[in-house]
């Protein structure tokens, strides 16, 4: 078992190395270069005496971009291993500080949406399966398909139009109201919660459908199993058949899929956060990327890579624990 884990760990390290190298190489060749943009700005300032090329050479040296992709990557890697991810160019603070400032907003946003998703999707999925081809089933299916099909930016815009512009119940975007500074601590908390409602709603609407469909499919499969027929045949009440025999068996694939989406809570919701100006990791990385902030983008993508690899590693290990055949291979 130890050998298996070590092997998987070794592979993960190699994948991480190549993934981050690919990301670094792409980052360095992006058309939006922070250094180039800054150099052009400086070169067009009144009174400036240097050409854009000269500024560029100077800034490249200053930001450590004069070493080329390969050397530059290893310098980054060397520092990153020591936990030094440098200072963000776009946010003027160190990368890790910025990350720490924003990650919890993303986590809270994702977590609330995740819980609501479970509360809504699983019961409805079960109901739809039990009453296959009924009006309830079709209604649930249609609604979930609408949710799946609508792009996030569309849902967000519609919600903003209805609830913020027309009804005026919520604010258009942002994380705090205009009177925030004068509120008590509880008031500040409620104000922030208020600003989270529309983003959470957006996330739930776009993601609830797939979980609902997944629950329904699995439930249907279980309901057609022999042991359900046996349970019914031996005269168990329907609630016990569904609640104890069917639903518990449906839980196995459900927990797998829910468990695998847990690391995703830390990766942020790029589109939703950007549209509602929620300053989470998705929003921050979006603006880092479009401004060519290599240190932050590198950190974020390396972080995502680690999350993904970690998720896979845990899944692999758990499979191995459950299924001896995996271990042998």
């Amino acid at each position, binding site marked *: 078992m130890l050998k298996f884990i070590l092997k998987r760990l070794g592979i993960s390290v190699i994948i991480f190395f190549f993934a981050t190298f690919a990301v670094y190489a792409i980052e360095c060749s992006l*058309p*939006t*270069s922070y250094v*180039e943009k800054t150099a*052009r700005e400086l*070169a*067009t*300032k*009144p*009174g*400036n*005496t*240097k*050409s*854009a*090329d000269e500024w560029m*050479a100077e800034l490249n040296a*200053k930001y450590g971009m004069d070493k080329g992709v390969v050397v530059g990557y290893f310098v980054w890697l060397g520092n990153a291993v020591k936990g030094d991810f440098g200072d963000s160019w*776009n*946010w*003027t*603070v160190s990368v890790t500080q910025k990350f720490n400032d924003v990650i919890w907003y993303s986590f809270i946003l994702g977590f609330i949406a995740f819980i609501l998703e479970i*509360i*809504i999707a699983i*019961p409805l999925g079960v*109901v739809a399966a039990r009453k296959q081809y009924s009006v309830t089933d079709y209604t649930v299916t249609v609604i979930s398909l609408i949710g799946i099909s609508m792009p996030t930016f569309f849902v967000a815009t519609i919600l*903003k139009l209805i609830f*913020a*512009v027309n009804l*005026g*119940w*919520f*604010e*258009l*975007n*942002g*994380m*705090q*109201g*205009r*009177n*925030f*500074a*004068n*509120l*008590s*601590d*509880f*008031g500040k908390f*409620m104000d922030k*919660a*208020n600003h989270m*409602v529309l983003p959470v*709603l957006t996330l739930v609407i776009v993601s609830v459908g797939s979980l609902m469909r997944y629950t329904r499919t699995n439930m249907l499969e279980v309901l057609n199993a022999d042991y359900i027929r046996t349970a019914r045949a031996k005269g168990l009440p*329907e*609630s*016990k058949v*569904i*609640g104890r025999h069917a639903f518990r068996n449906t839980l196995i694939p459900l927990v797998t899929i829910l468990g695998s989406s847990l690391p995703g809570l830390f990766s942020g919701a790029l589109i939703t956060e950007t549209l509602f*100006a929620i300053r989470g990791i998705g929003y921050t990385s979006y603006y880092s990327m479009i401004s060519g902030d290599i240190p932050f983008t590198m950190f974020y993508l390396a972080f995502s890579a680690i999350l993904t690899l970690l998720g896979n590693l845990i899944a692999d290990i758990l499979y191995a624990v459950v299924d001896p055949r995996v271990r042998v291979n």
Partner: protein
Amino acid sequence: MKKSFMKRLALGLSAVMVAGCLTACGGKTETPAETGASTAPTESSAAASGEKNNILSVGYSHFSSKFSPFFASTAYDQDVAEVTGILLLTTDREGNVVQKGIEGVTTPYNGTDYTYTGIANCDVTINDDGSVYYDVTMRDDIKFSDGEPMTIDDAIFSLYVYCDPTYDGSTTIYGLPIVGMNEYRSGMEAKSSLILAAGRDNTDFTNFTEDEAKTYWTALDAAADVFIQEIIDYCKDADAEGLAGVANNEVALGMKDWNFGKVSDDGKTIKGAGTGTEYDVATVSKTDYLTEMLAAYNNDIVTLGSTETAGSDLAALLDEKLGDAAGSFKAGVNTGDSAANISGIEKTGDYSMRITTSKFDAVTIYSLGFFVAPLHYYGDKAQFDYENNKFGFPKGDLSMVRDKTTKPLGAGAFVFESFENGVITFSANPNYFKGEPKVKTMLFRETADTDKLAGVVSGAFDITDPSMSTAVLADIKGYNSNGELNGDVITTSLVDNLGYGYIGICANTVKVGEQKDSDASKNLRKAFATMFSVYRDTVINSYYGEMATVIQYPISNTSWAAPKPADEGYQVAYSTDVDGNAIYTADMAEEDKYAAALNAAVGFFKAAGYTFDDATGKFTAAPEGANLSYTCYIPADGSGNHPSFGILTAVKDALATVGITLDIIDTADGNDMWNAMDAGTAEMWCAAWGATPDPDMYQVYYGANAVSLGGSKSNKYDVTDDTLDSLIMSARESADQSYRKSTYKECLNIILDWACEIPTYQRQNAFILSTSRINMNTITPDITTFWDWENDMELIEMN
């Protein structure tokens, strides 16, 4: 059980809904009741409803968190610096510097007299020797927002930060001709200069290594070998008999004939022109020749190489020999050998200083309106000792100043409290010299541009600056019940943008033969210019509607130097044909104008030497150096989204009918275009200039900045015109505005004659205000490009 399951489901769902509604209502209802009842400290119990109305919320695009007056670079960050800080000299509604800020200056604008006050006076004295004194006197009662009094030490500290050799912010005070500036900032020298200055026999390797010196001298000798041989060959051809007089040593002949050596009367020795050394005529070598050349030119290889050449350029040869290492020899090395202070900045009292410049320059006074930042906050008072050349921070180390970049402090109208959750919170500064602002809290809230208008309507913002288009204008009119731009919901303020749009043509790539300033070359460019200019009205109007106007001179309408339609000699750009006759008549229809323009363009092409085939009505051949096909860059996102795109497509179609091809390169990455312009390979392009309040033309049109010369490359058109250069310099060095205006008019005519820039549009910027929430009578009247709502912001009141 069915029922019970459904019950549980219903219960669960309703719980979710209730939870959602609770949070939804929370922010709305709790404010007055909650805070009133809570035992929160005084700060929030003051948050009664009256206080709530005393918050001004401004919608902003994204900040970069560089709010320090030294390092703010984006316009939005600079706004934060402006709100929290204070400028030494202020400007009026027309962008002129207010020189008597302490007493106040009253100037009329739009029929009203306005008085402008500031924190300082600045007296300008032009001396007989051409040097200029700027005597600054500050008010002695100004306090920073933390209560600390402001003195001249703060201003001197700020100046030294701006002028530090390591300063890399966007303020360019270090570019001013202040006496002693270069001596203070120098101490950085190119490695190659140091190696040359040290000489061949140098043994001191502090600033460079022995290997580097060896590499450099080897390369230089190899380059000089070629360079000098060319001179010698030339001399041998021209003066073959001369060899006998120099003991048949061809090097000595080259030296003598090239005036680098004087042969003695007896013909035995030759005296070098650089060092004065006497060499034996028979044995003098190329190395000796090089030594003399370097000495004569003070080691300036660039000038030496281009002046004394008999073919190749020495500097180019040297770069070639050095290969990849060439760049490293041009890099600066800190030698630490520099002045301890800037002699042109003198403290003359606790509240006064004198700044001396070596010559008059009209733009200097604008640059002297810099932010006065608190020494005790950004620097270290203990490290300030004017007498002993200590200015609040260690020279060359701005880390102390940089540490405060995200949290500004100054003497402005508002105090920076925090930047959290995308909201900058300011509180009123009770120490503000014009009086404490009426609005107690101001918020700058980040938002996407698309949400700005909706934000004002929904109540999130009271003031914001949406990017305007015909669609946004229509939306604003829709929200106002009177259907106008100014109504019961939104008040719109439109002002000219400080800058203008143009189509550029590079003189060096679009020319006939070798001469870019010949009549033929100008006619070639005028052919295109005539075509571009005729389509401007229709295209710009359809793109911008009432948000922009077509301009006829390459200068922003906001400038006092911009020619006005009533001025004598004012005319539509490129409206005369090759013979100087008007192309258009007053009653011409649009379609007829297009035909007339094409006709005039054909005339220009013919005059440029193009061969026209009358049978087909097409040009069949271009003169030498010119082409039948040209390309024009336009950064229109690859989708034609650019105000000038319609002009290009129309011109492309029209010119195709006479056999001239205009290729349009619509690039999604604007850097492609700028790279081509910087490399001097772009032929035509569409772009816009940002302007400054002063109309100085040095940067954009002065010959020394021409892109082909490789210096600052800021003259993208490669216009090199001696008359223009001297006019630009004389206007720049004059303090007489009417003289400057007439001089700039001449400059504009020369620029138009070069046909390198076709002015297209003057765009307007807008900001919108909530009519219902702001007391509109308290917003500063007569808003201009140089005077926006943030001026007099201490007077703004909410309804």
